C-alpha cells in the first residue's frame, strides 16, 4: 500500500540530527583525546612538597575583570602548600585550585585566604560591573499586575479597523480607529518593549477564498502602513491574511459581513 503520511516528526528529526552530529564527530581522522579529569580536591599536599612554610597563591584572578551588568565572569585560583582555602563573599571553602563562574550584580572584591601549617596567605581579585541598572522583569505573565498581560492588552486596547466591500481603503472611521490604535500600541510597546503585534486582514464570506486571501493581505498592509505613518515601527507589526477563514460571526447579513471586513490585532510570535 502507498504511504500517504506527511508528518514533520520532531522526534525523528531530533534523532536524525543527533546521528548526524555523531557521525560528524566520528568522521575526524585523528580523534582528540578527552581532557583529563580534574584533580581531586586536596586539603593536604599530595605532591610530596614540604608542608612547612606559608602557602603560595600561584593564581587568583577574575576574567574578564570588567563586565557589563548581567554578563558573567570566571574566577580562577591555584594555591600550593595549603590545607584550607576559602574565599569570602559567600563562596566558602574551595579546593586548592579551581574555577567558578559568577554573575556579579555590582562591582565586588573577593579575598582568598589560604591556611598552611606555618601561617596563612591572602590574595584579592576585583570584578568591575558597568552599565545601567537592570530593568524590571517583564510583566508578561503577571496576570495580577495593573498593566495586564500583553495578550489582554492587545485584546482590550486595540480596536478592529473596518473596511468597505472589496476595498482596502482607509475610511474616516477607520482613520479614527487606527489613530486610537497607534496611541494604544505606543503604550503597549512601552510596557512590553520586546513584543510584536500581528495585523490580521479578514474578509466577509461573499468573495472567493482565493481572492479574499489577497484582499485580506492588502487590508492588513494598509493598516500597518497607516500605523507606521503614525510612528509605530513597522518591524514590530507583522501582517497576516486569513481571508474569510476566521470569521467572527457567520450570519449572512450586512451587519455580520461588516464585522468580518476588518484588520484585527493579535500578539505576534
Amino acid at each position: 500500500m502507498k504511504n500517504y503520511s506527511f508528518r514533520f516528526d520532531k522526534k525523528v528529526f531530533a534523532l536524525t540530527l543527533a546521528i548526524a552530529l555523531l557521525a560528524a564527530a566520528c568522521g575526524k581522522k585523528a580523534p582528540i583525546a578527552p581532557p583529563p579529569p580534574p584533580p581531586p580536591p586536596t586539603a593536604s599536599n599530595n605532591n610530596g612538597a614540604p608542608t612547612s612554610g606559608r602557602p603560595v597563591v600561584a593564581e587568583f584572578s577574575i576574567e574578564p575583570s570588567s563586565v557589563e551588568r548581567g554578563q558573567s565572569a570566571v574566577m580562577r585560583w591555584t594555591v600550593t602548600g595549603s590545607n584550607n582555602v576559602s574565599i569570602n563573599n559567600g563562596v566558602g571553602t574551595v579546593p586548592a585550585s579551581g574555577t567558578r563562574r559568577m554573575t556579579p550584580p555590582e562591582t565586588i572584591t573577593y579575598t582568598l585566604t589560604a591556611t598552611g601549617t606555618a601561617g596563612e596567605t591572602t590574595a584579592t581579585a576585583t570584578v568591575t560591573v558597568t552599565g545601567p541598572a537592570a530593568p524590571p522583569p517583564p510583566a508578561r505573565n503577571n496576570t495580577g499586575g495593573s498593566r495586564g498581560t500583553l495578550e489582554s492588552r492587545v485584546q482590550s486596547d486595540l480596536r478592529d479597523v473596518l473596511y468597505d466591500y472589496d476595498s482596502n481603503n482607509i475610511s474616516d472611521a477607520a482613520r479614527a480607529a487606527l489613530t486610537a490604535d497607534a496611541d494604544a500600541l505606543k503604550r503597549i510597546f512601552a510596557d512590553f518593549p520586546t513584543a510584536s503585534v500581528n495585523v490580521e486582514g479578514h474578509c466577509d464570506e461573499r468573495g472567493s477564498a482565493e481572492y479574499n486571501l489577497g484582499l485580506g493581505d492588502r487590508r492588513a498592509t494598509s493598516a500597518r502602513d497607516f500605523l507606521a505613518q503614525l510612528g509605530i515601527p513597522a518591524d514590530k507589526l507583522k501582517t497576516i491574511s486569513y481571508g474569510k477563514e476566521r470569521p467572527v460571526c457567520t450570519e449572512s447579513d450586512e451587519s455580520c459581513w461588516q464585522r468580518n471586513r476588518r484588520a484585527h490585532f493579535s500578539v505576534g510570535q
Partner: protein
Amino acid sequence: MRVKLAGSVSIAALLLTGAATVFAQDIQRWITSSGGKPALAVIEFRGSGSQPFMDKFNSTLFNDLQGSALFDLRPKSMFPLNNPQRPEDLRAEDGGQGFALSDWANAPVSASHLVFGYTAAQNGVLVLYGNVDDTSQRNPQSVPLLASRYTGSLDEAGAIHVAHEFANDIIQKFGGTGSLLGSRIYFSSKRNGAKGSEEIWVMDWDGSNQKQLTRLNSLSFMPSVSPDGSRVAFTSYAKGTPRLMMLDTMSGRALPFYNQEASLNQNASFTPDGKQVYYASTASGTAQIFASSVDGQGFRRVSHRDAVEVEPKVNPKNPGQLLLVGGPLHPQIYQMNSDGVGVERVTNGQGEATNPAWHPDGQHFAFSWTSGIAAGNFNLFVMDIGSREYLQLTHGEGRNENPSWAPDGKHLVFMSNRSGTEQIYTMLANGTQIKQLTTQGINRFPVWGVK
C-alpha cells in the same frame, strides 16, 4: 456529423442562455463524441461465492457506464425473464424469454448491445467474466464485441475494482477517450482534526477510497495537481503565514519548495511540462503573479498591476497564456501572456468572476460568477475564450465554486454548499448527472488529476 447532432439540439437548446448555439454544440460534442448513443442492456450480475459484494459491483458498473455519457442504459424493468450469464447460455431463439440476442434487440428492451456475465470466487480471488454482444447478430456463437476475464481481491474493494476495469474496457470499445479510470480528485477537508484545521485529501474520481495526505494540524487548502499527477501543490499556514507546499502524490512525502520572503504565497499552477509553476505572492507588496521552477527557485515577477491578483492558471495547450483573477474593484478574470504583457479582461466586468479552470482543449474554461445576482451567490459557467460566449451550468442551487475539469473533458468536479455545508460534487459538462462525492465534515477546493 451535422445530421447526428440534430438529435441533441433539443438538449442543447435547453442549455442556451444567449445566442451561443455553436458553443452549446461544442459542449454536446464533448459529451457525446459519437452522436447517437448505443443502447446498453446491462444485466444484474450475480456472484458464485462472491454474492455479498455484487450490489456494489452492479452499482459501480452502472454508474461508470452512465457517467461516461456514451450510452443509453435501458431500464431493467423491461428486461426479459432469462438473463444469460455465459456465452453458452445464448441460443438462436428463446421465444422472447431472454436467452436469444433478438429478445434484447426487440421492443421493449430495444438494446443495441447486451452486457452480461458473472463473478466467482476462485482460489481466494474474485474473478469477473464480462461479455458484450451486439444484439443484431444472428449467430450467437459469432465473435463477441468483448469477452474478458478480470481479477480482484475477494472483497468489496475487489468488486469495485473489476467493475471499473470492465466498464473502462466497454467505454473504450465504444470510442470513449480519456477514461476517468485511475483519475483522482484532490481536495481539502475539515474532518478528523483539531478545531479549525484543514488537511489535503485525495479520493478516486467516483468518491471512493478517500485518504488523508497531510497531517500538518494547520490550515492547508487550495491544492493544485501537476499535469502528470505526480505532484500536488497547496497553500498552508503550517509555518504561520500562508505559504506554498508541495508533495509527491505516490509517496505522500514533502517535496522542497522555496517560498519567497512574503506575507503570502498561494495558488500554484503547473505548466504543461510540469517544470515550472505560476503563483501569487505579496513579495512585491500587493499580491501579484510570479513564476518559478517547480521547486520555487529562480522566481521572477510576471505581472505589474496595482491590484490584487491571484489564481494564475496556465493554458494546458499553450504555456504562453495565463488566466488569472484580479481586481482592482470586484474581481474579474483576465488573460495575460506568460511574460506579463497583453493583459486583457475576459469576463464582462459584471459581478465577481473567479476560479477559472481550463478545459483540456485549451479553448474553453469553466469559472464561477455572480452575474446578475447578489454578491457571493456564485454559479458555474463555461466560456469559449475565443468568442467570449458562455453557458451557465448551475442555477442557484446554493453557492457553486472551484470547478475543475476531468481528464476526459466531459466531467467537472466542483464545490457547492447546496446541502447546507460545503461538499464536493461532479457533473457532466452540460450540468446534468450531478453526484455528491463527500459527506463527512466540510470539503473544499477539488481539483481533478490524471492519477
